[in-house]
């Protein structure tokens, strides 16, 4: 009688296990109904008292067998349902990760700043350090200390903005050199950098552009040292295989003077529109510091000698980053600037 009841429980419980569609249902229809405190097993166990002492262990064993069987079936089903439910949950939670993500704006430095950083980082490796100076400069530092006296035709080389009789917007970064020669003791390896101004504006000239220059003062300084330094710079900045060329020129503050060309980085010297088919692009001016400049600053020549070189930063950006024309630098168009977030 009791045994039959047990068999009924086994059959019904196993049927309920198979019937359950989800873990919740499984729990309610099997765990609660059969295995719980109020379940059918508990009820059967209570009825065990009616059995004789001989029957009890036999029946007890049987009960345990049935219970184990149900529990095993339960566990298996539960595992199965859990997996099914997880799969379905994961599937429902699928996102289209190709949709645009929330914008966290990417900042950028101006290409002019990028050129400045690139150049200074190269020269720093050669022991140079950066100096700056006032943008409104005394005539004395902008011109006279640099061997450009008043009424000298060399002043025509630089169209100057005047503030008053004695002050100009600096026309080049060279007054930084003049200040350093006066205030610091040689030997020196200095970078001067910043905005400069020329009273000139067209497609290829901006009235407010940027220069960077290097100055080296030591006991023995030669054109070969200058050329070697610039050639190193060119290789680091534009490309390892590119050659440097000097052309004679004139700057009042250097003697001998040289214009610096480098092999066109775009075509590596083969000729293209950037270099007007010549294979070379002009990148700046250089020379040995004119003894007059050293003497005016109180530096004892020829005990101390030096060289200096300077580049236009906008031009470097045009050559290296492909900036198409100088006007783009000051429009501050965000579509242009965003390209420099590297």
């Amino acid at each position, binding site marked *: 009688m009791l045994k039959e009841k047990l068999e009924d429980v086994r059959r019904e419980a196993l049927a309920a296990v198979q019937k359950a569609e989800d873990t919740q249902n499984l729990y309610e229809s099997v765990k609660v109904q059969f295995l719980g405190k109020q379940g059918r097993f508990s009820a059967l166990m209570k009825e065990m008292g009616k059995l004789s002492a001989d029957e009890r262990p036999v029946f007890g064993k049987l009960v345990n067998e049935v219970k184990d069987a149900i529990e095993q079936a339960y566990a298996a089903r539960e595992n199965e349902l859990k997996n099914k439910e997880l799969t379905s949950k994961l599937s429902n939670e699928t996102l289209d990760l190709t949709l645009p993500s929330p914008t966290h704006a990417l900042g950028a430095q101006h290409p002019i700043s990028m050129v400045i950083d690139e150049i200074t980082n190269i020269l720093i490796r050669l022991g140079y350090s950066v100096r700056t100076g006032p943008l409104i400069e005394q005539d004395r530092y902008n011109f006279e200390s640099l061997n450009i006296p008043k009424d000298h035709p060399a002043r025509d080389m630089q169209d100057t903005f005047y503030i008053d009789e004695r002050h100009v917007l600096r026309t080049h970064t060279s007054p930084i050199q003049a200040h350093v020669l006066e205030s610091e003791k040689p030997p020196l*390896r200095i970078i001067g950098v910043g905005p400069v101004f020329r009273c000139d504006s067209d497609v290829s000239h901006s009235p407010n552009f940027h220069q960077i220059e290097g100055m080296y003062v030591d006991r023995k300084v030669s054109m070969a040292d200058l050329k070697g330094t610039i050639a190193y710079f060119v290789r680091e900045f534009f490309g390892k295989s590119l050659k440097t060329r000097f*052309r004679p020129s004139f700057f009042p503050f250097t003697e001998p003077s040289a214009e610096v060309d480098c092999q066109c980085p775009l075509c590596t010297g083969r000729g293209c529109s950037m270099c007007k088919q010549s294979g070379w692009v002009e990148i700046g001016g250089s020379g040995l510091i004119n003894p007059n400049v050293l003497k005016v600053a109180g530096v004892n020549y020829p005990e101390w000698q030096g060289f200096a070189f300077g580049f236009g930063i906008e031009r470097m950006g045009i050559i290296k980053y492909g900036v198409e024309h100088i006007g783009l630098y000051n429009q501050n168009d965000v579509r242009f600037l965003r390209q420099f977030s590297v």
Partner: protein
Amino acid sequence: MKISLKWLQDYVDVSEFFAKPQELSNLLTSAGLEVEGVENLAKAFDKVVVGHILEKGQHPDADRLSLCQVATGSGIVHQIVCGAQNHKQNDRVVVALPGAVLPGNFEIKLAKVRGVESGGMLCSEKELGLKAESEGIFILPEAAPIGKPFAEYMGFDDVVFDIKVTPNRSDCLSHFGLAREIAAILGRPCELKLDTLTEGGGSTREMVKLTVPSTDLCPRYCGRGVRGVKVGPSPDWMKKRLEAVGLNAINNVVDVTNYVMLELGQPLHAFDVREIKGGKLSVDRSKAGETFTTLDGTEIKLSGTELTIRDGERAVALAGIVGGKNSGIQDDTQDIFIEAAYFTPVAVRQTARKFGIETDSSYRFARGTNPDAVALAMNRAAVLIQKVAGGNICGEHYDNYPDPVKRTAIEIALSTLTERLGYPVDRDQFATWMERLGCLVEEKKTGNDVVWHITPPSFRQDLHLDVDLVEEFGRLNGYQNIPETLPPTGMMPTDHDPQYIFEVRLRRLFQAQGLLQAINYAFISSKFQERVLGSYEKLAGFGLRAIHQPVTLMNPLTEELNVMRTSLVPSLLKSVQHNSRHGNAVGRLFELGFVFDGKRGGGATEGNSYLQEWHGAMAIWGEQTDLWQKKSSAALVYELKTALENILKSLGITKFSWSQPTDAQSVPDFLHPGQCAQLIAEGKPIGFIGTLHPVLQDELKIRETVALSEINLDRLMQGQPRSPKAKSPSNFPAVERDIALQMPKNLPAADVETTIRKSGGDLLQEVRVFDVFEGGNVPTGQRSVAFRLIFQDLKGTLEDAQVNSLRDQVVKAVTEKFPVSVR
């Protein structure tokens, strides 16, 4: 300067370069005379020929156009539509056939003009680049052979080089001068063949009485008369030479003075002797206040300092710059006085600059002419004038040269050459080059070293120092021979300018906040700057210098760029305007730059520089999030607050606060009076954040709301850089307590927060606002602000009772200090 190859051939053999002009160009450039352009005139007129108008008819559909049938000797008759009116049947004309490229890169193509095919163009002198302006098409004489290439017909078989002569090389500002340089480079002879001068026109001294009081400004003055010239057009050969290098022919006498200037580099002037009042000329300073009218009719007022050439009554020329209208060569001039002089460069330059007159003459004098070539040029001109205008050359010429310029020798050692150039210099090679340049070379002593005394020729006024000779040798021997070496290291490195270090750092911090760096000009329109900034005093309250007087440029390019910036905001707004106009509806810009103050103590004396203050600024506009996502609920300006706070923290500045002006009057005019706050860092005002005033936004036609900020970087930089100071975090749990306070709307939340922090004791680690609420059961004029207080102890776990008592302490402090109540 333009140089004709044909003309050069007169003095030095350059014949091989007609076929290969690029070679001469490279040669000159590598010697320091940069060739900026080469114009091969024969090649320039390819497919341009002499044509014959067989028939001139009317264009069927255009009244103003004619339809011509033109023969060009090839047997083909070209149908050409022409817009000019001055031609007729049988005329000889210049025809540009399809494929021709006229000056200005104008390519001629087979085309349809108003439905009628046109196979070429009948050219005007302007279109051919022969004249700046011309009327109608160019009609040639009947003798012009049909079909002859136009270049050949015109005798355009020359090559013209455009050379950038650096200011030191005034000796190359002439054909002979450049020929001399080319001869030196190539090691060829250079010769100036001069016709003999025959004096037959009486005495120059009887024609004009000359005195030179101002020898300080005019060390040499030569003059010679020519009697009985016949003024008229110059012969073709002279016209062609002048025109080839860009000068217009005027008349034979004036043309000769120009010709000799272009030949020898010595500017000349010719006076009409009739107009020399009292028969007297003096080279002297002007009279203060007198007026002088130049040849081209410009009237200028002289001050008494300028050097003039004067007759018995008045100034007749501005020395070395321009002649007077009162004494120039006329069509009926017969007797002339030729002036050739050496005026000092400074005198000419000062006067030319003062009056803004630059002539071919002043250009050369200002760069320095050769005092030793003055008489030569005068005589050359006299002979040429006689040749092209007739007349008789006067004897007894003037040559006032009381103190001849002496050239001093430059001492240079072989060791100096080697040291400066960085490679061993050959002794004989150096001497050879110096001799080729025309220097007197004396070898002084030998031993371990060689020392020379080099005396440069009088035309090389740029050679003074030994390094000048180092350059001469270096360039002639070839800069390509300079090796590449690196200077030795071992020098003690020095520090960077702290401002540069800080700038690099700031740029990266702003970039990290998602901003793009803008760079604007340091100058701006004074009008626009004033309009934007309004009352400048208000900026002072924000820690930015109140600039009363912007620095004004004496010679601005335009009124749009006439003063230095006094704030970065106006130019950043220009950038926003540009972006808005170009459809960039979202943008985040920052700029680092200087502002300037024109007001300085003590006036504009030397050493007393203009004050420059270093600023940083931001301008942002537009919503950042993408359209499909939720937009931020906070106003745009809060983004700037976050950016600035992040930057301050990145700089190690943790003590900062914000204060909002309660009085709208103290808010700068360009900001929204209710959306502006001042930043105080470590007790000092540093700058502001705010929203652009809607009226100004409207006026600037910016579509989006703009938030702005400007800070004083000089102040921010103080005490930088700082090292982080590390503290160990607590290992014990943090306990939170929330306090919601009902408070008046106009009570700044930051004031309450400060009191909470102060009253919360050391265990209060953090205070956050987590809810702001208006409306509902909060009365009008009030709002609810909920603060979350986070307590934590380094030494142990906090007890509830302890935290509750701290909370009560905070509530007590705020409710006592402010009209607030706990909700």
